[in-house]
């Protein structure tokens, strides 16, 4: 599936964003990445999405080497990034260019119904709330059934109630389609609720500090003892990355919560 080998990235300005990342994702699993800001989480996702070039190392999707956007890898950003001149249906259909119109319409209608936006097909993006827009972005990324889906803090701009609704919808879409999911979040609760595996990163340069398995049964219960235990484990690991003795600049360690 997705496998990453000795991946490093140094930006043109000298910022050493990632150093020797090794990571391999199980097909159909959900993996979450947590870590302070500036530890290279977005950089990692952008490299996997083929939007930036690695300095060293390789990313493979199956047998394909990733150097540019790959048809089997979708990405959702922190902002919905809908095209304002397209209706909701056309925005979702944007991910299906080249398919016959009938097939496209059927797939779009189907996924819009699944995310509860069946009645919104003809609306303009500006007529939707932030949460609805992000749902459209999720539909756009998933409508073509990519094998892998990357999400970079997709819900962090939303209020808690909206966020929890979106967690359930993402899980529903995931269990129907089973894409491999790699999501960045700064919300430990979100990571423990959604992910099978939680990767804790540390900065300067960005590396993997710890990998925590989270084998709880689904649907997950926030009040279950296993849930709380996993949460505490992640928080402790995050704390260690910050007290790790590295001379991390204040900005880099500030406020993962």
């Amino acid at each position, binding site marked *: 599936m997705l496998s990453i080998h000795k991946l490093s990235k140094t930006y043109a300005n000298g910022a050493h964003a990632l150093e020797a990342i090794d990571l391999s994702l199980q097909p159909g699993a959900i993996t979450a990445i947590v870590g302070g800001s500036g530890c290279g989480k977005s950089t990692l996702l952008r490299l996997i999405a083929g*939007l930036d070039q690695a300095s060293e190392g390789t990313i493979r999707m199956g047998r394909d080497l990733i150097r*540019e*956007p790959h048809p089997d890898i979708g*990405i959702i950003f922190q*902002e919905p990034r809908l095209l304002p*001149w397209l209706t909701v249906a056309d925005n979702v259909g*944007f991910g299906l*260019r080249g398919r016959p119109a009938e097939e496209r319409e059927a797939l779009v209608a189907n996924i819009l119904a699944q995310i509860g936006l069946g009645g919104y097909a003809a609306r303009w993006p*500006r007529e939707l709330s932030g949460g609805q827009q992000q749902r459209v972005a999720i539909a756009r990324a998933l409508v073509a059934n990519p094998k892998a889906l990357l999400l970079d803090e997709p819900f962090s701009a939303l209020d808690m109630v909206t966020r929890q609704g979106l967690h359930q919808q993402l899980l529903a879409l995931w269990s129907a389609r089973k894409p491999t999911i790699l999501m960045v979040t700064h919300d430990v609760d979100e990571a423990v609720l959604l992910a099978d595996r939680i990767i804790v990163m540390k900065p300067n340069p960005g590396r993997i500090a710890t990998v925590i398995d989270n084998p709880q049964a689904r649907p997950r219960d926030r009040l279950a003892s296993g849930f709380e235990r996993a949460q505490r484990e992640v928080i402790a690991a995050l704390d260690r990355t910050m007290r790790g003795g590295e001379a991390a600049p204040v900005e880099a360690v500030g406020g993962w919560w």
Partner: protein
Amino acid sequence: MTDMTDTSRPGRAFAGLAKRPARLTVPAPRLLLGLAAPAALLVLWELLIRFGVVTGRLTPPPSKIFATIGALASSGELATHVAATLARVGLGFAIGAAAGTLAGAVAGATPFLRRLLDPTLQALRAIPSIAWVPLFILWLGIFEASKIALIAVGVFFPVYLGVMGAILSIDRKTLEVGRVFRLSRVETVRRILLPAVLPSWIVSLRSGLGLGFMFVVAAEFMGASEGLGYLLVDGQQLGKPDQILAAIIVFALLGKLCDALLVGAAKPFLRWQDTAAASL
């Protein structure tokens, strides 16, 4: 003020408040409201002359101006002048807008060509366009070509700047969406660049059109035997203020009409926009 004394029934004052905006908007269509001030001015003007407060020799009353427009219209003269002016504006606008769009697109999309072309164009833009008139007459003669060239130059610059600026300000994040979905270059232009640039392009065309009407007057001042600008000059030379004012009014109507046509043509493509005013 709403009557606030009746507090016996809760919600009463609130209901009164809620109704008020409706009362303001229903009986006063915007068009009529917009016409009220000029109409009042015209009536006042007419009355001042009727009652002999002013002579109106140099400021003919509205009735006389409209009579002049009527006479010009019924003799067929007006149609000739309007057609001549519209043909010049239309052709000059088409040439200037096409060239401005092309140059703006090229300069916006390719940094090399921008660095090559933009300084020169900016320098040329700093020249008051009317200053070209003698040169254009020398080069292109006194007839149509020099007039159309002047109008085209006037239209060119706002369109060039508008298109280039619009391309330069396209959001990188939006372009990235195109990359994620692996759009080809041509598809990126068609599906992202063009729609993103369209609103600014329309705005720049509108200012170009406005300048086109400004420059057609200058062009027709420099020797024309027909056109609304000719009517202005002729009215001045023959001492006919009513004809001058008639030409000015026709200019205003024509300009407004062409602008409205442009906006109307663009409207279906801009419904997605989230602008404060419904009109562009």
